[in-house]
């Protein structure tokens, strides 16, 4: 029996973007508020492959902002997220990495990724991720979230970039203020939006 191609999912996409995205693979370092929501946006946009890396399990307190459900509580995040993404597009290629990431593992785990989306919680971890990725793959972009806490202040959210480093957020607010689903999701979708733009730009060359 012929496998259904499911490409009709993408028939309302921006013309020509689907073919480029279908050939692309994005790495997601951390599948929490940033990573899970960015992964959903990329899947709906038509990304061909995702490398999902996280070692955590879903907790109830994640549900205020992360793309998980009550039935996922206790599951490995990468497994639960892969299931949700395949429920959108059964043909997406997902490489799961249930692993606690550290600087020396980045190059190997994400070697097939065209670019990397950062989804860590701690600022210190964001820094070593940027440093290790830029050292291993200076020609590939890393797209981070920084400053996504609190409520409102939509106008303060921006993309600050230089070279292959892209930072989405307000670069100020931190999680001690508390995290609100809409603001976290905006920043996650800004990350996905930058990724889609970069992949299309390089795919047109």
């Amino acid at each position, binding site marked *: 029996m012929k496998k259904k191609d499911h490409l009709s999912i993408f028939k309302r996409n921006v013309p020509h973007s689907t073919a480029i995205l279908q050939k692309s693979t994005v790495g997601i370092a*951390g599948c*929490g*508020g*940033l*990573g899970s929501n960015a992964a959903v946006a990329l899947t709906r946009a038509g990304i061909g492959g995702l490398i999902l890396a996280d070692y955590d399990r879903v907790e109830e307190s994640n549900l205020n902002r992360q793309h998980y459900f009550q039935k996922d509580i206790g599951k490995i995040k990468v497994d639960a997220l892969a299931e949700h993404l395949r429920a959108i597009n059964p043909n997406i290629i997902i490489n799961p990495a249930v692993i606690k990431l550290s600087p020396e593992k980045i190059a190997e785990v994400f070697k097939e990724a065209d670019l990397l989306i*950062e*989804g*860590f*919680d*701690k*600022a*210190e971890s*964001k*820094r070593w991720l*940027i*440093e290790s990725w*830029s*050292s291993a793959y*200076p020609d590939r972009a890393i797209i*981070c*979230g*920084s*400053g*996504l*806490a609190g409520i409102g202040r939509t106008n303060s959210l921006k993309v*600050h*970039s*230089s*070279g*292959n*480093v892209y*930072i989405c*957020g307000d*670069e*100020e*607010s*931190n*999680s*001690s203020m508390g*995290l609100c689903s809409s603001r*976290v999701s905006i920043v996650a979708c800004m990350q996905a939006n930058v990724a889609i733009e970069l992949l299309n730009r390089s795919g047109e060359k």
Partner: protein
Amino acid sequence: MIIVNNRDKLEWEKGMTVQNVLDKMRYNYSLITVTVDGKLIPANEYDSYTLEDNSDVNVFHLAHGG
């Protein structure tokens, strides 16, 4: 002249390091990452990485949350 974050201007001095720029700009965020002319500079090189005149420096603040 050094341009910081596409906005601020700083007089260039011979031998100026990334750390000198951070001090002069009074960046007091505990966690930052820095690029010079689009190249990521690791934190352990801020004291030793010297800038050419007309360098384009970007200082990104990294805040907790994800």
